[in-house]
């Protein structure tokens, strides 16, 4: 009984250690946020880490896997498997509040709810903004412009 509990807590500690290792892995396209903030890490056990791609054609998917592998090795979890799942599909709803705050501070407007066209300018906060292009510097972003401060900015698309 005692041994079982000890084992359980070791497992728990292991998972915590893996989570914190993953928290240090930045998104290669938006290094201001970690892959945990973005909701790419779906599940962690001491045997397996489950990831999901943001976009089907996201070129960062492979890079992320390699970075996760390196982070796990460094934290002493070289035996942990990495698994990628497609279902349920990733959604911007999984970006944490902390992640959204980091995006904004980085100059990227966080995703707005589906259907909403009210996008705040990350520079001046104005909501008088307009879409320039449906696609931006990466597949997950659109190009917008603030009509008050005139700065162009990226909007993380709702997905």
């Amino acid at each position, binding site marked *: 009984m005692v041994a079982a509990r000890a084992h359980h807590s070791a497992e728990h500690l292991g998972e915590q250690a893996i989570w914190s290792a993953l928290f240090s892995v930045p998104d290669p396209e938006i290094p201001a946020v970690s892959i945990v903030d973005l909701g790419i890490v779906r599940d962690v056990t001491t045997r397996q880490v489950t990831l999901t*791609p943001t*976009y*089907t*054609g*996201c*070129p960062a998917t492979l890079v992320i896997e390699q970075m996760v592998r390196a982070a796990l090795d460094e934290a002493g979890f070289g035996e942990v498997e990495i698994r990628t*799942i*497609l*279902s*349920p*599909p*990733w959604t911007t709803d999984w970006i944490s509040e902390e992640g959204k705050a980091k995006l904004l501070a980085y100059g990227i407007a966080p995703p707005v709810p589906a259907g909403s066209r009210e996008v705040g300018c990350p520079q001046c906060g104005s909501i008088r903004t307009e879409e*320039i*292009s*449906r*696609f*931006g*510097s990466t*597949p997950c972003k659109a*190009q917008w412009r603030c009509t008050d401060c005139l700065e162009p900015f990226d909007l993380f698309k709702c*997905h």
Partner: protein
Amino acid sequence: MPSLPPIRPEDEAVAKVRGNTGAFDAPPVAEEDRVRFDYLLRLGDDSLILGQRLSEYCGHAPSVEVDLSLANMGLDLIGQATHFLEYASKVEGAGRDGDALAFRRDVLDFRNCWLVEQPNGDFAQTMARQFLFSTWQKLLFGQLTASADEMIAAIAAKAVKEVTYHEELSAEWVIRLGDGTDESRRRMKEGLDWNWRFIPELFEMDEIAAEMTSRGIGADVGSFREEYDRKVRAVIEQATLEVPSDQRPILGGRRGHHSENLGHILAPMQYLQRTYPDATW
């Protein structure tokens, strides 16, 4: 363009023994899986070929924003193709992976529809092709999210969100160009006319499609034909253009019968892997 005769099985058999290291030598797979494999090739090849076509625009589009749009749509499509073809390779179980399927099959083994291999033409023709395809693909993937094949359902659910963008973006361009200047209007009309005769193939139900549907894996394309026609018509009317009249359809892409365009797409796409097999970064 006249309708072409079908490829006779004996012609195909002759073509297939000529290769020595290419896809033509692939070992046979179990009958049940072969149907699923073929269906996955159709899904994957549509995305792969259109993705490759759009990539041709990289650095050549009329404006930076459009360049980004086309490259990103191409990327989405190649992402879909990667998932479908990787899965197809598992179903086939012949030891060739998704890359081998993309880069080492020959024209006769491609299962994409004719629409996606049509030349880019001018920007209007490209957008007309995209609109006609993405409108269809969105309805298709919408239905495939309920596929009895969990992997197909997962890929479709992932991709349908992206295709929604493709449909919106291309529909907006059809309207903007159609209801634009005399020149943009003429070009959009010509673009729609060019691509129109490839629509019927999207709704073709042959034995493979029918078997996949009856097993609950494939989509029943006929079930959304009316919805497709309605959507396409609504956009064309908003673009103040006339809906083109139906022409004699060209069929056969699903069985490996392609236009000369496909070879010209594959030549640059497959060059590296053909010349330096198994090359890696």
